[in-house]
């Protein structure tokens, strides 16, 4: 085989999450009462627009999750030797971006480096000049004259490409019937799908533009070691998504189990569980995370042999961060579920089940758990954006993801020190800002609609 698939710990959990989501979709299709709140979400224009944006992030994140190692050659006994470097499918697609490293900073769409260097002229003289970039605008003969026109040309190509893809999709969606298209455009009930289509068009045009432009330029500049900032921002998507989703995934079993047990059994079980979460939530979250991450650093320093590669090490740290964020954030959900279970245990159907002699375990599983799942879902969706933002702050304090991992927090952290420069190196911050803002805004808007669709009363409690 020319490559060997690699499944990192977070990859495995992402696949698990994906399987859970698909399993839920399959299950919900047979149970109309499970779909009906989602239909309400589907009727919201905001939610559908936000969903398209989130889908773009998720696709990039998933492509970046399919890891593999390339074959580099063969050993004497005929076995294939694999590279030690782990790449993802996304890396493969973005190879030009990944490999077009400059020497140091360069501004977006620049053709020259950000700092002056000694350049040897053909006649032997030395001058201090801004040298040309190796990749950015290297195809131009006279950058000062041709650059604006070239950028315009590439941008137009990108826009046309994006629009063409959109057109094809629409043609397929309407099976080449113009009548369907015109009635869709005027039907007031199809508003949400129109919004989704418009957002899709915008996203496709933006994607097309960035693909076409980044063929010739560094559209968001390069960072201190000359790496393309646009590539970094795209790679950071996976980190953000992992933190936002896996954290809730790893905390869910404990929070759900303890929460409904406390509310259902009451008595000493309730006391113990309440004590547990009050204790945990009274420790300031940041400090608990800091303490745990410090401890993990010590552990990793002392057990360096356990990790085969830098990627694996960074991945372990990412997973651990999810775990520890989960430990600090499950208490809120646990408290909500306890309150809900306290109410549920008084209801007739639970009392009836108890009177029939159904075991506690079955009552919890069949009668309590399904009736608190909407709260779980709402909290998962609501927590997402907060966690993405938290990652940036934690990385800033150096207790976030591994410094080698691409993440928006690390981008901000390294760019922060360059703000004192004249002129300001702003593009790393700008890139991190735009990518985070779009994701978090979409997630916030989507979460609001989901909450209102599933349980409008919960607004006052979360």
């Amino acid at each position: 085989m020319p490559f060997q698939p690699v499944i990192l710990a977070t990859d495995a959990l992402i696949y698990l999450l994906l399987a859970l989501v698909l399993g839920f979709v399959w299950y919900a299709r047979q149970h109309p009462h499970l779909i009906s709140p989602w239909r309400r979400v589907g009727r919201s224009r905001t939610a559908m627009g936000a969903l398209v944006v989130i889908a773009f992030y998720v696709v990039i994140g998933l492509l970046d999750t399919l890891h593999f190692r390339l074959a580099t050659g063969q050993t004497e006994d005929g076995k294939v030797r694999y590279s030690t470097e782990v790449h993802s499918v996304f890396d493969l697609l973005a190879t030009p971006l990944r490999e077009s490293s400059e020497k140091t900073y360069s501004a977006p769409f620049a053709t020259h480096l950000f700092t002056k260097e000694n350049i040897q002229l053909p006649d032997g003289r030395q001058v201090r000049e801004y040298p040309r970039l190796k990749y950015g605008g290297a195809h131009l003969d006279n950058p000062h004259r041709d650059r604006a026109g070239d950028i315009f040309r590439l941008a137009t190509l990108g826009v046309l490409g994006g629009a063409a893809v959109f057109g094809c999709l629409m043609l397929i969606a309407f099976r080449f019937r113009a009548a369907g298209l015109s009635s869709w455009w005027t039907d007031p009930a199809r508003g949400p799908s129109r919004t989704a289509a418009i957002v899709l068009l915008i996203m496709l045009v933006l994607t097309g533009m960035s693909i076409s432009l980044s063929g010739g330029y560094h559209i968001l500049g390069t960072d201190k070691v000359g790496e393309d900032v646009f590539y970094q921002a795209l790679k950071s998507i996976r980190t953000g998504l992992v933190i936002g989703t896996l954290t809730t995934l790893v905390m869910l079993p404990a929070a759900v189990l303890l929460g409904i047990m406390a509310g259902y059994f009451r008595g000493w079980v309730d006391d113990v569980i309440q004590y547990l979460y009050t204790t945990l939530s009274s420790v300031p979250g940041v400090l608990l995370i800091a303490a745990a991450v410090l401890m993990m650093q010590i552990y990793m320093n002392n057990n360096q042999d356990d990790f085969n590669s830098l990627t694996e090490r960074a991945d372990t740290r990412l997973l651990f961060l999810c775990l520890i964020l989960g430990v600090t954030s499950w208490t809120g959900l646990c408290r909500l579920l306890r309150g809900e279970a306290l109410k549920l245990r008084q209801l007739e159907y639970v009392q009836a089940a108890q009177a029939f002699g159904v075991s506690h375990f079955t009552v919890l599983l069949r009668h309590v758990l399904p009736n608190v799942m909407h709260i779980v879902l709402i909290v998962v969706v609501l927590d997402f954006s907060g966690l993405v933002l938290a990652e940036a702050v934690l990385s800033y304090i150096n207790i976030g993801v591994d410094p080698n991992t691409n993440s928006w927090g690390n981008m901000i952290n390294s760019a922060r020190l360059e703000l004192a420069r004249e002129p300001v190196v702003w593009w790393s911050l700008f890139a991190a800002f735009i990518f985070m803002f779009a994701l978090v805004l979409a997630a916030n808007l989507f979460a609001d609609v989901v909450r209102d669709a599933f349980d409008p009363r919960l607004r006052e409690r979360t």
Partner: protein
Amino acid sequence: MMAYIIRRTLYAIPILIGVNLLTFMLFFVVNSPEDMARMHLGNKRVTDEAIQQWKVERGYEKPLVYNVAADGMGKLTDTIFFEKSVKLFAFDFGQSDSGRNIGHDISQRMWPSLAIAIPVMLVGLAVNISFSLMLAFFRGTYLDFWGVVLCVAMMSISGLFYIIGGQVLLGKLLNLAPISGYDTGVNAWKFLILPVLIGVVSSIGSGSRWYRTLFLEEINKDFVRTARAKGLSENWVLFRHVLRNALIPILTGVVVVLPSLFMGSLLLESFFGVPGLGSYTIDAIQRQDFAIVRAMVFLGAVLYILGLLLTDISYTIADPRVRLD
């Protein structure tokens, strides 16, 4: 009332013991003092004597919970657990890993923290209440809609960007306020403008939206309808009836964070170079000073529990319908 407060205070003791055990486990059992010494002294070429000396200097050479060598009470007291953890209950924080007295540092550094945290809280409260009251007054109009959109957009911006943006815009480009630093006494006000302003602005998004839902909830209640039916003006209804009742959850939400104001804001202080407890904690985390982090974890937990207690009490004061039993 008194009996309730006493019972709640007593209830806090097992929680504090739990916090203490947790930090002890985290800092001494999961990772032995030997690991910490290796971390501090560099990983590879370090002699056993150096490690031993590092541990003795900080009192980490003792047994964890039970000292077989000592006699009498010393079996329990001459241990790391007693020396480092139990003393926290008397707020005796001991020395940091770099040899400074933590208790003294904390008492010095809490004032700059408060100088930022209190104005941020008060101004933020005023701004958020006025803004959300305005949105509630214009509910259902375009102003309300775009106000909420603005709130959601502001919520979606990381706090880091507010700080960096404020520093670059107001500090660097417009030169309105010093970018960072601190001064003693009254002269500090210059350095407080920017952090306070940014602290307030970054809280508008989530704060205003949350208060708006509180107001809207009250607006739909029966007593408000009655007040309108009596012919009272919308202003009167809003300020006399809605605001007063919505203030109960707002104020109790503030009370819970009151004690924690001492801890300062991690981000604001470290970005603006304010020598408060927040930057103290961040410095400690970055220098990997375990003694300070441990002390701050304990202090934070105490203040949080105090906040919960105050919240319960303030409920009874603000809302006579709540009975404590």
